[in-house]
Every structure is written in structure tokens, then in C-alpha cells.
């Protein structure tokens, strides 16, 4: 019981960190917004990979779709942010639903290839459709209206930061609910043993289609958020690099925990910002090293390591009490 309340306290404290950063680090709001958005994106991958066990190397496809949907809407004169966000989510959800039928069938390797293929396909399509997307130059002229008709996006990035924070928090609460529900348990069941699930009467395909569609929708919302807050959409928003980095962040933070996605995104992006400022070559080197270390010595990522340490601490304090 008290452990539960302790857990709640830690959660509240966790969410106070980005708010504290808003107040204390006004010079870093741009980076901060990016972290919040990428954290949202990482959450979407955590649902499909961390919970449902679907590996993906092309998740940026949905991020990019959402970004272009919201960006194009605004560029063509519809600058209302919330409906743009919704549009990004819906477009990505539709694409995710269609793609899911290809993805859900195969084994891991087939899934990697299919998701990779979908990502490359969309990238090339966006590249060719330069008349619409701006091609390699990117989509500019994204003019955003005010949130609720009141809060305009400011140069300092305050609105963008708080907007991103609010969306991240809302989606997080939704995912928390989803993953602790029977549906969430069934996704973990599929991840743990897809062969047993049908033998207890579970329609595995249908569950995975649902999960994949939701994951795509959230990725789309994250993409739309990036388009709206930076008022620009580049081809890299649906590039392979983004998908691969996302996977790295999630593994780094720890899969199947939600918080791992957020911590992984934050650590990754802060380290990238710092180290690539020092020397871009070093960044790749340290990233590579970190990855190998984590995969071999801390399978649960940063959060997994923290949990294990907390458990060990709890056990030794229990023993001391005895």
C-alpha cells in the first residue's frame, strides 16, 4: 500500500521535472520541446514494440505522415492547431491500420523488412511529390493559429513547450490506462508468447491490428506536433535515421514501461545535443558504445537498471530490518 503511494509520488515528481525545466532553463525551450515530442513518438513505439512485441524499423513513416498532414493543412491556410493535431493522428492511424495487415502476419525478420520497406516507400513518395511536400527543401510556410484561439506560438518557444508538454501528458495518461487494462495485458501476453494466446482463445491478429493502429496514430500526433511547433516539415521526419534513432532511444530507456520511452528520449537527445556540440564523430562513437553496453549488461535499459537497483536496495534494507 505504502509502496503504491510511494510510486505515485515518484510519478508526480517525474512530471514536475519538465515543468521545472520550463521555469529554470528558458534558454533551452527549443530543445525541450523537441525532447517532449520525441518522447511522445517513443511512447508510440513502446506500445507496439514494448508491449505488443512488434519490431519496427519504419515507425517514422507515421511520424512523417502526421507531420506532413498537419504541416500541409497549416500551409494551405488551416492553422488551427488542435484540429491539425487530430488530422495528423487520423491520417497516420489510417495508414497504420492498412499497414498493420502486412506487419502483423510475419515473424520478427519479416516485420523488420516490411516496416523498413514502408518507411523507405513513404520517404521516396514524399521526395517525389515535391509540388506538395517541398521535397528535399522541406515544407515551409506553415503558419499556425492560436491554441484555443488564445495562445499564440511565440518566438521564445514558451507556448510550443507547454503545448507539447500538455499533449505528451494527455497521451501518456491514455497509454497508462490502456496498458494497465485487460487489453494491455493481452498485448503483453502476445509479446510473451504468441503461440499460447490463441490456445486461450485470444484473437491475436485483431489485437495487434488495434495496437498497431493506435501506435501509428500517436506517432502521427507527435509528427504533427513537430510540424506545428517548428513550423517546418523536412523529409528527414519520415527518414530511416529517425526510425532507427527512435528504436535506440527506446531500448536505451527500457521497453514496455512507458517511462523508459520518455527517459530514453531525454537522455538520448540531451547527450546528442551536448556531445555533437563537442565533436559530431564522438557522438556516433559514444552512442555505439553505449548501445552495445546496454544490450549486453542492462537488457531492461536505464529504467530496468534502476528497477533492479531499487529491488536490491529494498531487499537489503528488509534484511537489515530483520
Amino acid at each position, binding site marked *: 500500500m505504502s509502496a503504491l503511494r510511494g510510486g505515485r509520488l515518484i510519478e508526480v515528481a517525474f512530471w514536475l521535472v519538465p515543468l521545472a525545466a520550463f521555469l529554470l532553463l528558458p534558454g533551452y525551450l527549443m530543445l525541450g520541446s523537441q525532447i517532449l515530442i520525441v518522447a511522445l513518438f517513443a511512447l508510440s513505439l513502446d506500445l507496439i514494440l514494448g508491449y505488443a512485441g512488434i519490431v519496427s524499423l519504419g515507425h517514422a513513416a507515421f511520424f512523417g505522415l502526421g507531420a506532413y498532414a498537419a504541416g500541409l493543412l497549416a500551409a494551405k491556410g488551416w492553422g488551427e492547431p488542435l484540429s491539425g493535431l487530430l488530422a495528423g493522428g487520423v491520417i497516420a492511424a489510417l495508414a497504420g491500420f492498412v499497414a498493420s495487415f502486412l506487419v502483423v502476419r510475419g515473424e520478427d525478420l519479416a516485420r523488420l523488412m516490411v516496416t523498413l520497406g514502408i518507411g523507405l516507400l513513404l520517404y521516396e513518395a514524399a521526395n517525389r511529390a515535391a509540388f506538395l511536400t517541398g521535397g528535399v527543401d522541406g515544407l515551409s510556410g506553415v503558419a499556425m493559429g492560436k491554441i484555443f484561439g488564445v495562445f499564440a506560438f511565440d518566438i521564445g518557444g514558451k507556448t510550443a513547450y507547454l503545448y507539447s508538454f500538455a499533449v505528451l501528458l494527455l497521451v501518456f495518461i491514455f497509454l497508462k*490506462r*490502456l496498458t*494497465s*487494462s*485487460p*487489453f*494491455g*495485458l*493481452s498485448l*503483453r*501476453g502476445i*509479446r*510473451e*508468447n504468441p*503461440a*499460447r*494466446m*490463441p*490456445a*486461450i*482463445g*485470444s*484473437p*491475436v491478429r*485483431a*489485437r495487434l491490428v*488495434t495496437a498497431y493502429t493506435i501506435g501509428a496514430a500517436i506517432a502521427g500526433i507527435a509528427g504533427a506536433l513537430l510540424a506545428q511547433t517548428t513550423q517546418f516539415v523536412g523529409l528527414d521526419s519520415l527518414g530511416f535515421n529517425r526510425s532507427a534513432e527512435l528504436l535506440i532511444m527506446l531500448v536505451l530507456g527500457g521497453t514496455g514501461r512507458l517511462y523508459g520511452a520518455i527517459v530514453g528520449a531525454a537522455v538520448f537527445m540531451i547527450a546528442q545535443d551536448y556531445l555533437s556540440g563537442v565533436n559530431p564523430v564522438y557522438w556516433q562513437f559514444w552512442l555505439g558504445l553505449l548501445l552495445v553496453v546496454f544490450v549486453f549488461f542492462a537488457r531492461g535499459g536505464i529504467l530496468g537498471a534502476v528497477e533492479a537497483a531499487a529491488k536490491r536496495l529494498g531487499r537489503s534494507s528488509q534484511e537489515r530490518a530483520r
Partner: protein
Amino acid sequence: MSAALRTAGLSKRFGGLSAVSDVSLEIPQGARHALIGPNGAGKTTLINLLTGVLEPSAGDVFLGGERITALPQHLRVKKGLTRTFQINTLFPGLTVLESVVLAILERKGLAARWMRPVSSHRAEIGEATELLATFKLDRDAQRRTAELAYGRQRLVEIALALATRPKILLLDEPAAGIPSSESVEVLGVIAALPADVTVLFIEHDMGLVFRFAERITVLVAGRVLMEGTPEEVARNDEVKAVYLGREAHG
């Protein structure tokens, strides 16, 4: 009255190998029926055909008169046909309780819901806890399945199947890997299932087979060698030569 479970000319070929050939079984409701045969006889393959894990090369499966040959696995479970696996097929990272609750939620059609947390599903958790108690698994309920010893995991394997409340239960060597003292107990729980539940079980321990089976089908090289009461099977010379003989030597 139609049989609870029936097959007609059921066959499965793996390339050039006939793992199951022209098997026609008829299992009445409430039966305690054993399926025996040497290793590689095709017993597991037959269960895979019955449950829809594998598609037959020829023949049909009927459940209470309804042809279910093309029905997907999970829908057969919904119709009351459940199996266990010869090799533990569990959810290593879920706790034992979570696993059984999941099976119960699936049975009740609640497993696609997302508004309420699992922890507020008191009725399902209560039912799972009771089921685990019948296998003396209550003290392991909160442990991850992977942390249990193999023999105890074997009990989870069976508890998961029972959580679906099967009308027909197919058990693939349920006692394999359990100390023989406990295996009597396990089969006891199964034998004590309501009389209208049909049980088909594969078992190598002849003591257990003769103790719990009312009828026995002997499978050799994918074909039904004979079917009869335990006494008939024990008396049969062919069975002695092909199966019991080999068992005694090997």
C-alpha cells in the same frame, strides 16, 4: 447423439513423411480417453490438427457434429476445445496470476477492454486465485512464470487450460516433467473435472493411463493400431509387440 469430438480420415504429411494417416476417432462426451504410442507416432501432430495449429492434408474434424476443420484456433477455444502443450508454452514475463487472469478475461470476452485496469477486475482475480489454489500454486501467484521450477510451470500449463472452462480438454503429456508422486495428483484434478467435460490425454506412464483412462487409442507411425478398453489394449499382442515391448526394452 453425435460424438463430442470426431475426426474422419484425418491426415497430415510433412513433405514425404506421413505424421498422421487416415485417423478416424470418435470421442463421446464425458470420456476419459487416452492416446498412447511410441515417440514420433504422431500424437502431438494429431492434437495440433484437432486444435487448428496445423491444417490437415486431408480429412475433417467435427466438434459436436459441427465441421470445424477450417476454424481458427482461438475460435475453437471459444467453442470449448482447449489443449495443453507437451513442452511448456507459457508467458515467462507475466506473473502466474496475470497469466490465469488473462485466460479468464479472454473466456469472458473482456480482454479487449481498456477503460478499467486489470486490478479492478475482482471477480476474475478471485476466480484465478481459486483455480491456482487447486494446484497449490497460490504461493507462486505473484511470481513471474519464468522464475518457477519446470514442474511447477507444468501446473500453470494445465491451470491456463482449465481457466478457459473447456468442454473438451486435450492434454499433451501433462505429467511429463512432474515428479511421479505429483503426477497422480495432477491427473486426479483432471479426472475430477465435471463428468460432462470430455478429456483426451496423451501419456507415457502406463500406470497413469490404466488408472485414469476408460478407453485407449493406440497410435503407431501415424495410424490407429487399435482402440479399446485398458484391458483390451493390455491383452493385445500387437500392442505388446509394437509399443509396450519397445517401452520395456528402451
